[in-house]
């Protein structure tokens, strides 16, 4: 495992992309920053611009109006970038699959590396996912 991957694993900068969610996963992501589940211990920081991001936290089942913008956000991010899908909506479309206004396959819009199922996934589950992501990086 390269020395560089270990460095990347220890300092993941996160950017939050919300694609028409029910804003429960977004609140759980913000919960991670609050004192109880503070993720800055792992060197994870919420950054303001896509250019600084290492991890795109994507939430919500994309509806047709939001999908092209999420595509553009993904193209703007510097590689290597990881896309972590938070919640069942992104992972499997949850209960909104049959709707006329949602994109059937989300992997066409944005390639997803890691799925965190759960509606909403518990903050502990998200921290465990981050640990796995670090593990994957550490080889």
């Amino acid at each position, binding site marked *: 495992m390269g020395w*560089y991957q270990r*460095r990347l694993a220890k300092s993941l900068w996160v950017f939050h992309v919300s694609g028409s969610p029910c804003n429960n996963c977004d609140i759980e992501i913000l919960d991670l920053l609050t004192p109880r589940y*503070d993720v*800055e211990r792992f060197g994870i920081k919420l950054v303001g611009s896509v*250019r*600084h991001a290492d991890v795109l936290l994507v939430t919500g089942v994309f509806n047709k109006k939001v999908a092209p913008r999420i595509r553009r956000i993904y193209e703007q991010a*510097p*590689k*290597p970038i990881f896309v972590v899908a938070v919640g069942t909506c992104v992972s499997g479309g949850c209960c909104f699959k049959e709707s006329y206004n949602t994109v059937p396959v989300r992997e066409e819009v944005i390639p997803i590396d890691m799925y965190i199922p759960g509606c909403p996934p518990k903050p502990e589950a998200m921290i465990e996912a981050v640990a796995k992501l670090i593990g994957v990086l550490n080889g």
Partner: protein
Amino acid sequence: MNGWTFFYLLVFPGLLFTAVLGLLVGWIDRKVSARVQYRVGPPLLQNFNDFFKLLGKETLIVKEGVRSMFVLAPLVAFGTTVLIATLIGMPLFEKWLSGFNLPIASGFDGDLIVIMYLLMIFSVMLILGGSATGNVYSSLGAGREIKLLIADELAFILVCLVPIIKSGYTLRLSAIVTAQASAGAFIGSVSGVIAFIIGILCLQAKMALPPFHIAEAETEIVEGPLMEYSGPLLGFWKLNQLMMYVFFPLLLIVLFCGGFNLQGWGILWAVLKYVGIVVVLVLIKNTNPRVRIDTALNFFWKYLTPLGLIAMILAVLGV
């Protein structure tokens, strides 16, 4: 330019020493801020990880931006930072280095003026870097950076004038240090204390720490001028900002607290002086929210600059 100048430039008071110390001191800042908010805060080597990670990332350059300036700005800024660190570091560690009878390049007449110009160049580079991208948020941030620069530059010059006057109108840092060695640290006198306090606030603005981090307001205009930077260029910008944590307190120590005498107990006293200034900066950072740009402007001009003039007059009177 014998080999030793390169050593001074690149290793001891220059690049390596300042970078490593800057990354360590940056950790103190993040840890204290986290503790203020009941949070745990990052591990010790977090800034090192951040910097090396950024080195490995891909650099995206905006198509319609001015490509050359976009790339050049952080490198030139990095160069000026290293130069400033060496210029300030030399007079401080002169005696200690002479102990190992190394040839000393102990600065030249007027190096304080050169430092002021180099600091100006750093801000100008940030402005050019921001506006080179053509991104609206960045140009907005660059505009604010200019206003901030105008605001604190005048006050900073007055702050530097006080030690010059008190040490018999010399423009040489090492001469100021020797003058203080004989006449006692300038902070002892009334004008020295006033100038020191204004100096701290100017540092706050120059290093873009809250409450004056208007240009890179993270939650508002998306990291300001640094928005379009990614990868190594962003890494250099972040390293520059962290290196400021080192050479700005050292500058204040040289100007007001009589530099270091690193024999026996002197070392403890030197470390205490340095850490004291850093803690003051961090405390100011954590206690007040962001200030609007025009509030910052009239704060600097309406309060600090007249205060600086008074301090200068007192210094002339010899108080």
